[in-house]
């Protein structure tokens, strides 16, 4: 949406305006932009360039010498088992979370847009977890999922299931973090889907109903195809957000058991602020940026190039 509405919205008379007025307008524009551009240059542009530059150095914050090492940080990264484990965990976490979040938020959006009593109350209620800080979410869910006195295990005991070690088992730890993250994060995509659903003309449904379509046909024939741009937005922003997961493992598992819940950002923190290896840390973050860009492009290809974004 943003890209298309584009920049050049010159009003028709502009070509006739005297030169000095156009210059004045441009000058005013630069002044309006100045504070933003200055801060943006320092904290984004400079930072991104610096990250790439530093990734060619063996920059350890506690050592006085910072030798240039060329690509050796990237070579090390390529052979770094912990990096690959973190990346694998992050990808699995992201795919599961985005899939779960999308399904849950779409179902919730469909439910609360039905013209029935109480729908706006539930809309407000369902959005609540999204407002909590990851600290609150982590503390609460860490306790709910506790193996010893956890209430989730208690609930499962009614179904005849043995208590599971949710956060202490290598197999279950990522699904547990996924579950927590879905609970925390489905509110935003839900609101986006609601907006998308409200943008579908009611006429289409009426016409289809007259033709005898049932609920499922309406869903798969009208709702889902028309929600394609919304779906793209939700999944792209979801992937970008969840790929950078840090708080859930940091608070709930400390990356454990072993390294079973190391994520890329968690590893980045370990490298840069526990081992003080800034150069190597920059290589990690640059690699992350490249991988995320690749993921974003793949999604655009998969979900549809025509969707407006």
């Amino acid at each position: 949406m943003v890209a298309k509405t584009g920049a050049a919205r010159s009003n028709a008379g502009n070509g006739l305006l005297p030169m000095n007025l156009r210059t004045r307008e441009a000058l005013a524009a630069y002044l309006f932009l100045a504070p933003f551009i200055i801060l943006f240059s320092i904290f984004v542009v400079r930072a991104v360039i610096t990250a790439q530059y530093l990734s060619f150095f063996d920059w350890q914050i506690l050592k006085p010498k910072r030798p240039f090492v060329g690509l050796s940080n990237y070579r090390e990264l390529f052979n770094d088992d912990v990096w690959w484990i973190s990346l694998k965990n992050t990808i699995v976490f992201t795919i599961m979370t985005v899939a779960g979040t999308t399904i849950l938020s779409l179902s919730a959006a469909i439910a609360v847009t039905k013209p029935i009593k109480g729908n706006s109350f539930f809309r407000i209620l369902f959005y609540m977890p999204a407002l909590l800080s990851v600290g609150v979410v982590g503390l609460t869910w860490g306790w709910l999922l506790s193996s010893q006195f956890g209430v989730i295990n208690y609930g499962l005991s009614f179904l005849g299931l043995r208590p599971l070690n949710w956060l202490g088992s290598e197999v279950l730890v990522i699904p547990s973090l996924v579950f927590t993250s879905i609970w925390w994060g489905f509110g935003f995509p839900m609101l986006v889907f609601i907006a998308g659903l409200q943008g579908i003309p009611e006429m289409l449904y009426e016409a289809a109903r007259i033709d005898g379509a049932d609920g499922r046909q309406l869903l798969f024939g009208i709702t889902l195809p028309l929600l394609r741009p919304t779906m793209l937005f939700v999944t792209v922003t979801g992937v970008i957000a969840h790929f950078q997961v840090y708080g859930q493992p940091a608070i709930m598992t400390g990356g454990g058991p072993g390294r079973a819940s190391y994520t890329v950002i968690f590893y980045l923190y370990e490298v840069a602020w526990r081992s003080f290896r800034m150069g190597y840390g920059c290589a990690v973050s640059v690699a992350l940026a490249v991988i995320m860009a690749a993921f974003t492009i793949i999604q655009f290809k998969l979900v549809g190039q025509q969707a407006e974004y």
Partner: protein
Amino acid sequence: MKFSNSNFVRHFGTYFFFLVMGIFVTFPIVFAFSQSLMTNQQVNRWPPPILPISPTLDSFRTLFTQQDLKIVLWLRNSVFAAAAYTSAVLVICAPAAYAFARLNFPGKKILFGFLLVTVMLPAQVTLIPNFLLMKDLKFLDTFHALIWPGAANVFGVFLLRQFFMQIPRELEEAAIIDGASFWSRFWHVIVPLSTNALTALGILVFLGHYNDLLWPFIVTNSLEMRTLPVGLQILNSSYAGQYRPLVLAGAVFATIPIIVFYIIFQRRIIRGVTMSGMGGR
């Protein structure tokens, strides 16, 4: 007959969904609240008690008096930093958004396209360089580190630009005829018409900053400069094993302001978030 029957079933399904989802969403919060009113012995028991039989405020008393937990100060830090950050974002992004929405200047397309591309970059790429910059500027462990690095908020510019472009140009024309400067067109015409968008962005940006964990964790280190999310992490790592209700009390303490804020501003928040979702990121 058949129709109304299936209608009932469909609505029954929706209400059932509401019920299950309602429990799913509220149970963790209610449970944390409930167990924060228990003693350590009551909490560490099987089956886990759900309702406090003899509620006690012990854990909250400990929370406010423990020497290494400065939770009220952390809350104050969080609120102050988030408020200062929000003001900075609004003051910096609104004029920039106006320039993109209404003014013509050489380089506009290129600059805007460039901003669009940077949105794809994960913010974490800037983590180390900005940390090192904060260190060199001696901003570590000060509010400066919590305010400036994110103040050039691209998302804020996009959102406001989108909104400004929807304001009819005619409304500015009277001011143009009066020979008003660009600044007074922006300040006296556009800003008063955009209070909704500005509030929406303000709320979003405030909440995002208030809940941030990693950056404040990295750039603060004294107990007095921590923010609430970082403080909760400290609380969790030092007390989760030995005094669980205290940890839950911390979570409840951090949740209450947010819930109150949400109850007051629910409509604005929902509308703001929805707007941001539609305006593109």
